[in-house]
């Protein structure tokens, strides 16, 4: 087993453990921290896939902003009910459905004939940037509008009415 393979399985294990923590934990804050573990491990997976820029984005946006936001809202919306019930009654059905989905997905991944390239390869950072600002201008500008709408919507919805 080479170093890259060992790293992949270690990071994959961390990702899945984090995901399990998110869906099974009895404490909402523990769930958020498990989500952080999972997201950082996914950043490592991106590095193994030669997507360095995406690894940076993953750490900056997910690790730096989204998890913080989730933690803030967990603090804002504490629930007074006790005992705290985090799961709904359709848990067994959910288990069956998700296991079934996982089986179908994995079997189909292994049955498909992929048109593989010679070797896995990445892309130079400047090439990616050039493509982003030449071929993908419209999505890029639309992204700014999406962010603008998110910002305005958040301010309108979340702010308490001034009285």
């Amino acid at each position, binding site marked *: 087993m*080479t*170093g*890259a393979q060992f*790293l992949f399985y270690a990071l994959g294990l961390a990702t899945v453990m984090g995901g399990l923590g998110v869906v099974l934990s009895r404490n909402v804050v523990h769930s958020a921290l498990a989500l952080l573990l999972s997201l950082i491990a996914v950043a490592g997976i991106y*590095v193994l896939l*030669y997507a360095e*820029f995406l690894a*940076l*984005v993953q750490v*900056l*946006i997910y690790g*730096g*902003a*989204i998890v*913080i*936001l989730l933690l*803030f*809202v967990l*603090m*804002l919306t*504490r629930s007074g009910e006790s005992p705290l019930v985090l799961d709904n009654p359709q848990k067994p059905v959910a288990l069956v459905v998700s296991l079934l989905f996982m089986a179908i997905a994995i079997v189909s991944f292994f049955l498909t004939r992929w048109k593989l390239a010679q070797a896995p390869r*990445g892309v130079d*950072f*400047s090439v*990616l*940037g*050039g493509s*982003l*600002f*030449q071929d993908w*201008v419209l999505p*890029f*500008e639309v*992204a*700014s*509008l999406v*962010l*603008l709408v*998110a*910002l*305005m919507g*958040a*301010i*309108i919805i*979340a*702010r*308490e009415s*001034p009285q």
Partner: protein
Amino acid sequence: MPGEYAINYTAVLVAAGLGGGLVAFLFIISYLLAPHHYSEEKAISYECGMLPMGRFWSQIHVRYYIFAILFMIFDVETVFLYPWAVTFVSLGPAAFFEMVIFILVLLFGLAYAWKKGALAWR
């Protein structure tokens, strides 16, 4: 995996391993060395003074959330600035004005937040 790429990230790996190892080491040391006797009184929020009332989880105010949203939006903007900073000289004026439009749209959002009074710390 190409040699140089792997070597670059070995440094990251070593730093992550050292950091994580140090944290684990400190926790283990403190677990082994410190005496621990748990009691009811130690679990309350303040060990000295009056008994706390209500729940231990104090609720934060929603204005923190507005600032967190602003932070996230401009965090995303920063992410786009990185590839732009590397390439905008070679791409010519078009790329420059694309980014100006992008930033102006987001600055409009900031101005809106300001106008709405979301930035005021009341």
